């Protein structure tokens, strides 16, 4: 780690001011992505703006229509929330399979979405449910939020405040872990809502999380594993690395989508 200036503002406005003041400032949430990168000297922000002093960025509110989760809410809180377990069990399950207990006790949903790791879990839920990401400036639909590997629609001084997940009729998440990192080698989030079905895939796409429209169309008509049995996702554009070929990942999407649909609640 290199030396840096540490700031802990009390509200979002002050945080934005601090971000504007220094041109190499970074927000710190749970630190589960940022701190390892800093320790390896792969990231070297001059200023760290720690969000933990800001009240109101954390917590879960659920209604019959939506589950709204504050940006600083930790994975463990989502996983253990009775409300999430009731209205959106697939999301509680997703949070429970992120990393390990240490990571879940510090990592946050806002940090995960802002980071947009191509193998992270939350982006699949956001896209797979058609969530809305609320920042200090605007509301962004998930479909317009994720912009490729580690890229999002967030501006330089934009802070995620909360995420709103519409409550679907049914949703399911199946994750196949990378044997080393335990991130998603492939993860598929499926949902059936009033606007039809959604299928979002993480871990597999060379440009990050993406939707499988062909499956969505089939599931919109018949939300069953059988309905997508014949649908093959092409290997082109899939990540290929030591842990799995592009063909393997493409194949897993089909397997996991069927399992997610079958398990959807």
């Amino acid at each position, binding site marked *: *780690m*290199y*030396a840096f200036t540490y700031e802990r503002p009390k509200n979002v406005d002050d945080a934005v001011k601090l971000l504007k003041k220094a041109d190499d400032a970074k927000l710190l949430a749970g630190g589960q992505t940022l701190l390892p990168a800093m320790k*390896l*000297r792969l990231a070297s922000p001059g200023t760290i703006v720690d969000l933990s002093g800001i009240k109101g960025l954390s917590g879960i509110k659920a209604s019959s229509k939506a589950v709204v989760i504050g940006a600083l809410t930790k994975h463990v809180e989502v996983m253990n929330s009775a409300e999430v377990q009731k209205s959106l069990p697939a999301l509680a399950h997703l949070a429970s399979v992120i990393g390990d207990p240490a990571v879940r006790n510090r990592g946050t949903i806002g940090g995960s979405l802002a980071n947009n790791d191509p193998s992270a879990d939350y982006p699949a839920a956001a896209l797979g449910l058609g969530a809305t990401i609320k920042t200090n400036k605007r509301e962004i639909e998930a479909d317009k939020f994720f912009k490729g590997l580690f890229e999002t629609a967030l501006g330089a001084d934009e802070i995620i405040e909360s995420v709103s997940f519409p409550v679907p009729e049914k949703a399911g998440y199946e994750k*196949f872990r990378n*044997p*080393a*990192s335990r991130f998603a*080698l492939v993860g598929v989030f499926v949902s059936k809502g009033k606007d039809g079905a959604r299928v979002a895939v993480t871990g597999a796409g060379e440009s990050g999380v993406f939707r499988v429209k062909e499956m969505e169309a089939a599931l919109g008509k018949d939300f069953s594993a059988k309905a997508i049995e014949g649908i093959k996702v092409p290997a082109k554009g899939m990540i290929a690395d*030591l*842990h*799995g*070929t592009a063909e*393997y990942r493409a*194949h*897993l999407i089909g*397997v996991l989508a069927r399992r997610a649909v079958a398990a959807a609640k």
Partner: protein
Amino acid sequence: MSATGIGAAVRRKEDQRFITGSGNYTSDITRPGEVRAYFVRSPHAHATIKKVNTKAAEKMPGVVAVLTGADLANDKIGGLICGWAITSKDGTPMKMGAHPAVAADKVRCVGDAVAVVLAETLRQARDAAEAVEVDYGVLPSVVDPAKAAAKGAPQIHDVAPNNMIYDWHLGDKAATDAAFASAKHVTKLDIINNRLVPNAMEPRAAIAEYDQGNDALTLWNTSQNPHVARLVISAFVGMAPEHKLRVIAPDVGGGFGSKIFIYPEEVVALWAARRVKRPVKWVSDRSEAFLTDAHGRDHVTKAELALDANHKITGLRVHTIANIGAYMSTFSSSVPTYLYATLLSGQYAIPAIYAEVDAVYTNTAPVDAYRGAGRPEATFVVERLVEVAARELGVDPAELRRKNFVKSFPHQTPVIMAYDAGDYDASLTKAMNMIDYKNFGQRKAASEKNGKLRGIGFSTYIEACGIAPSQAVGSLGAGVGLWESAEVRVNPTGSVEILTGSHSHGQGHETTFAQLVSDRLGVPIETVSIVHGDTDKVQFGMGTYGSRSGAVGMSAIVKALDKIEAKAKKVAGYMMEASGDDIEFKDGKFTVKGTDKSVGWGDVTLNAYIAHKFTGGQLEPGLKEGAFYDPTNFTFPAGCHIAEVEIDPETGKTTIANWVAVDDFGNIINPMIVEGQVHGGIAQGVGQALLEGAHYNSDGQLVTGSFMDYAMPRAADLPSFKVDTTLTPCPSNPLGIKGCGEAGAIASPAALINAITNAVGHENVPMPATPSTVWKAAQGGMKKAAE
């Protein structure tokens, strides 16, 4: 059996300290005035060093010195060596290239040290290291051992044309060729034994301190064998005379072989400490450990097995290319030769064996002994061959093994080893019963009903441990003897200190060695302490590796205890006015034979020191004895592991459904510790078979340079093991011990791959058998079945 004696499952004495954070590891030690060292390492796999500019770095805050390979050469500090001489087929000695602790002219792998920065704090050292400018002339590199000797491959060391260190062989070529010529059936396999990163929990570390007044150096380091480190650093590196160099290996958090070797960083710490006249501390970070700890395995092998019409094995032929890496690490040459080819007979009576081994340099981290060292590679070759042969012949793999087992002992194999004792049938039969082999078909059918594949695989392994009689290893090229030493110091109040040349880095010697003493002297285990890992306390020792501390280290203690007992009897004789010969010693009591006259242990030890009951002419005061023990043979632990797996053919995920291990370790001192060693060994073997694999890309970059890409086994990857033992005591040492530290890692990869290949119906499943790999194999297997 007493509650703390031999055979008792005594809780580990050392664990209180370890699990409460009270251990004393090298990085816990701070010396007054110490500076921190940080290495500038090559980002290139192969390059000339044109220029190293340290000027900017020297001016950075807190920097004490920046030292380069040229400085090291100017100070005439010698390079590192490999201590086991191997001779090629044509009689020429192995071709060992120079290994300076800091490269001066050329780097040969990513992570090669080119400079070291010493600064007041670690961060300052690291910041300054980034300011060291190195001008490299990048050269083409080679990482694949199978390509290293090819025409046109980059030349890594001038002394080794075509990167060939040796081409060695063992066995009778003509007899083996004849066996194949007349074979009824030949099974052939191409095998890659995947490269592994040791990943001990505690990364390596070193602190060096120079005592100017006495012109003496002290090194604290993470070593499995501090005396050998002192010997090499003194005699070969030329750092300081042996009596002016003290090496202390305090608590060490795991080694698995990787901490046997002498590494550049500890040499540099010593040299730098003397130069700057301040203690120098270096602690490896995990990324450095991935790049610079000696890796393990990395063989490319072609293997063939010949069988006659009665399914008797008549011959075995092996050609192996062994990757040695960029430099020859301390024992690297012995691993793919005398620790490998000598075990190719397995548990079988094979009349003819011929093995050829080519050792090559590549632009990768050095490769040396890693838990099992050569024997896992041998077991994998033999046990895969036998299993595949059984499948090809359509016979039960257990029956084919049984038919070919060595059944009478001693048994001389065609590859040097003389097996002294064993009962291979017993462990196989017991393991088959434990896993309920006869109902495997039912379990397979149940899995198939659920859309899963199920497979079962055997590994009836043998290994040679306790390495070994000094004369024998000397004749095979070892530069050192492989005995062990012990000293027993009895205090006036009866407590006992055992000084041993063995070194514990997780094995539990403080418990097991104390159990032996408690058993022999009838003293409570709490009154025995074990001293190890300090060259100023223990006179000399060979350290711990090759599962040798029980068989060799404890035998030395037995010898010293024999002497203690003899002398204590004499003291007791003077106390009770009887001849020493008439004294019996049992359960801590000395009794005059045939009388009820007795004195206790504490009385005798006190009298040995106050010396009031005998004159100096009659007996020397005190009670302290030492011994060196050199065994008469290797020991031969053997047994049977059976793995049963269930595979999801859609994802390729392998789940270990059952695991049975039946091992013959000879006599056992502490069954709980032995079981722990078996569990840990299997976990490492499962790691090799399913998860772990060091991978360099074609530019020589280590792609698996962190735990994000290098998959270590976790508890959730492992089943609940069923372990048991059979017993044939080892005839070659006084305790009848064979050793248990490596067996799990040796046996398990073959069992697991045999089970997976059985499940998918396809032999081509390379290690690590990741889900992606198994899925592909399962597709192939299904295609084959459909044809």
